[in-house]
């Protein structure tokens, strides 16, 4: 449990947000060309990092906007919050 600084609403309790998992997984540009292995990689395989991870969050019980977050999963410390489409910060 922690406090998240929503880029649109400011600081709110984590229970207002929902996590969309690993960020920056690019949707396949030509889905019909994809092999089964590539589909599995896109749909299921995850880094599941213990440490600094880039992830997507949604302020579900607030502005309902999506944004990105850099968080250390070993201690839940948040390093950065940035809007969708912005360049990920170097941590």
């Amino acid at each position: 449990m922690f406090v998240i600084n929503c880029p649109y609403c400011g600081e709110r309790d984590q229970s207002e947000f929902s996590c969309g998992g690993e960020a920056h997984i690019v949707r396949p540009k030509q889905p019909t060309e994809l092999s089964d292995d590539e589909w599995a990689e896109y749909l299921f395989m995850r880094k599941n990092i213990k440490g600094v991870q880039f992830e997507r969050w949604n302020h579900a019980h607030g502005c309902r906007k999506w944004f990105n977050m850099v968080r250390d999963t070993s201690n839940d410390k948040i390093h950065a919050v940035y809007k969708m489409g912005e360049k990920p910060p170097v941590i």
Partner: protein
Amino acid sequence: MKNKYSIFSLIKNAFSQHENWKQAWGNPEPKKEYEAVIVGGGGHGLATAYYLAKKHNMKNIAVLEKGWIGGGNTGRNTTIIRSNYLWDASAGLYDHALKIWENLSQELNYNIMFSQRGVMNLAHNLQDVRDLKRRTHANRLNGIDAVWLDTKQVKEFCPIINISQDIRYPVLGGTLQRRAGTARHDAVAWGYARGADEMGVDIIQNCEVKGIKRNGDQVEGLDTTKGFIKTKKIGVVAAGHSSVIANMAGLKLPLESKPLQALVSEPVKPIIDTVVMSNAVHAYVSQSDKGELVIGAGTDAYISYTQRGSHDVIEGTLKAILELYPIFSRMKMLRQWGGIVDICPDASPIISKTNIKGLYFNCGWGTGGFKATPGSGDLFAHTIANDEPHKLNAAFNLNRFVSGDLVDEHGAAAVAH
């Protein structure tokens, strides 16, 4: 057995004030090389080593544990054992485990306190009723005992349940598996450790794996905090940390690790003699032999390795518990903790070879691995020894995420495993 436990050994040791019991397992330093190395000294890992030695005659093996044995999810779960899963593959897997549980104390000569007190799953809406009835039919076709109980029968089986139809999520009935129940979690790890140790397995505690060495597509050994250990077969049973180990070998798994919480109350006299689970409101409760209520809560909805979990999650669970069991309203909770569970997209485990020769994974048990401990160990040992899965774990391979042949137990097992 060098130190068989019996009524006679108990009497004999009483004369020496119980000061001469032999250590149940040793504390060896790692050898330079092993035939196989199991990473993770929880119930599943120790059971794997036990069956490798017992059924596959592999004696030169080691179990590496970064902390102490049984200190991870084996010591953190709510000890529920059942096999009433929907799909054939899951039914085969979990009932295989349940059959081993039924004789495990005798086999290990170690009292694991297996108690077939029954597990009841409640239905709170019309869809629950349909799903759970379908599941009892599926179970019975697979030879697993399951019955449907109406609201009155639920009340008869567990009198403290509030069956008022005026509450937010009223009880509309439930399923009951009478062969299901609980066991003493620590004893399972200790019993398997003692059995494995006796057959010559090295159980090495406080030894963390730091890297996996490969020669092309074949594993060569492990870098650990106690030095390099050479081996051609590595079985990883690291629960929430499976992805961390996989990354060391350059492998990605379809897993997300999340904290799952449980809590226990102050001990009270016997009040609930079964296990009641409710997926819809996410509350499950049983009572330990010490008298504590053992309550399982949900997972946090984000990846975390923090082993604690959020307060709002247990708050939600306790709200549901109080509505179903108003009698608990003045109970005090004693302890709360979290364990890191590795969740698969289809809520089914992975017991599988990988595309790296000699590297095997037993993971993805998510929120409900304890119940499968003996079966999981047995089938994983088979997979490692023969380099081929047993027919009972063939469906639980890694390749199912490529082929699409998933074993989707989300509906049947839901969040509360």
